């Protein structure tokens, strides 16, 4: 039930004092209450939406940073893996040497 889905805010308006808006979830658009993020969001921002309420603005800088860190870690991993393979074949080579 705590499902929250990121979507892009495409419209912001005021409904008799309540900040509302339209959020695009990969092509599907829905009315969303923006009251809890009203001070920080603009049209074009991403927000995490839960049961029709935006509960946070997606921190895009942080998201990119984490993702980059994960990718770098993965590349590092591949290098290490290559190193392991090289080492292993060397060991095998040594073991098989007469």
């Amino acid at each position: 039930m705590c499902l929250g889905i990121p979507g892009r805010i495409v419209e912001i308006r005021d409904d008799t004092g309540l900040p509302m808006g339209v959020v695009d979830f990969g092509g599907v658009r829905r009315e969303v209450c923006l009251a809890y993020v009203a001070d920080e969001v603009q049209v074009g921002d991403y927000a995490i939406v839960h049961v029709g309420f935006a509960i946070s603005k997606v921190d895009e800088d942080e998201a990119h940073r984490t993702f980059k860190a994960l990718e770098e870690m993965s590349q590092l991993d591949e290098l290490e893996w290559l190193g392991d393979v090289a080492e292993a074949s060397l060991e095998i080579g040594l073991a098989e040497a007469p």
Partner: protein
Amino acid sequence: MRYLSEYRDPKLARSLVDQIKRRASRRWTMMEVCGGQTHTIVKQGLNEILADQVEMIHGPGCPVCVTPLEQIDRALHLARDPKVIFTSFGDMLRVPGSECDLFQIRAGGGDVRIVYSPLDALELARRLPDREVVFFAVGFETTAPANAMAVWRARELGVTNFSVLVSHVTVPPAMTAILESPDNRVQAFLAAGHVCTVMGWTEYEPLAQKYRVPIVVTGFEPLDILEGIHMAVLQLEDGRHEVENQYVRSVRREGNQPAQDLVSRVFELVDRQWRGIGSIPRSGLGLREEFAAFDAERKFALDGIRATEPVECRAGDVLVGRLKPYECPAFGTLCSPTRPLGAPMVSSEGACAAYYNYSRYHATEEVAP
């Protein structure tokens, strides 16, 4: 970026799995708190891929599952009332009460409607002033701001034919109950990312200190979960017990302040019954006295409805991690998603449903070492 599909990248996932395998010197036991995380873990088979490094215990973070039978029976009673339009999130409709479920009431002519947001229920009440609209306000801290807003708006707009049947629970008291239990095996927690989006993580700092348990605030996509497990394993290996945040794109330390403010204006802490677990002091939210007019329990005098839970359902043991779903004697036989004994088999976040739907319930999967 769309902040969704990127976190399902198989190459990055493999890399994280390798890192966890490399760092874990033994098999650690950790609990993911939220049922949404349980589903990602079981669906992607992360518990099987990492079976030698971590045992994942599935936590109580499924609001549908922990809503007490008594409250379901009260919902059924209201839904039968011809004056009432009973509104709820779809998840609650198949949860078994003492005699039947909301779907069956609807089939029998009761006016039961699924809504996407509590504001939809309020809108329905505005459009149909001659009917009584009741919304089933269940959930954890994530959902509390939405439900608080519906009540707040109802008062603001002078809507008198709208009320809520509240069964709100909060996470930290449940974690404390698990840690205090004499047979607790949890060595680290993946805390629920969306609960912490609302509440922040300062409440978890004293828990991590007191029980010397690492807590990693974690998201819901496969890469989030794997990174959360990785961070928890690093803490366990280093002998640290801190609160760390994996879900940085959504969670800030102080949480969402405007949401917390409205929740505490509308709700107050109350003792709450957890299905299968029992009463936990100050673990739930109830409407404050000034919102009594919107409290369905008082409006419809539901206090007399009491219920006792069936003994054959071991949902309580599953919810605190004492029992894996497939270890329950009723699993897949007496109890299935179409004929459930307990809520964990019905809810889209329930651990039993996850094992049933993704067919990962081989008895050989987790043999205690």
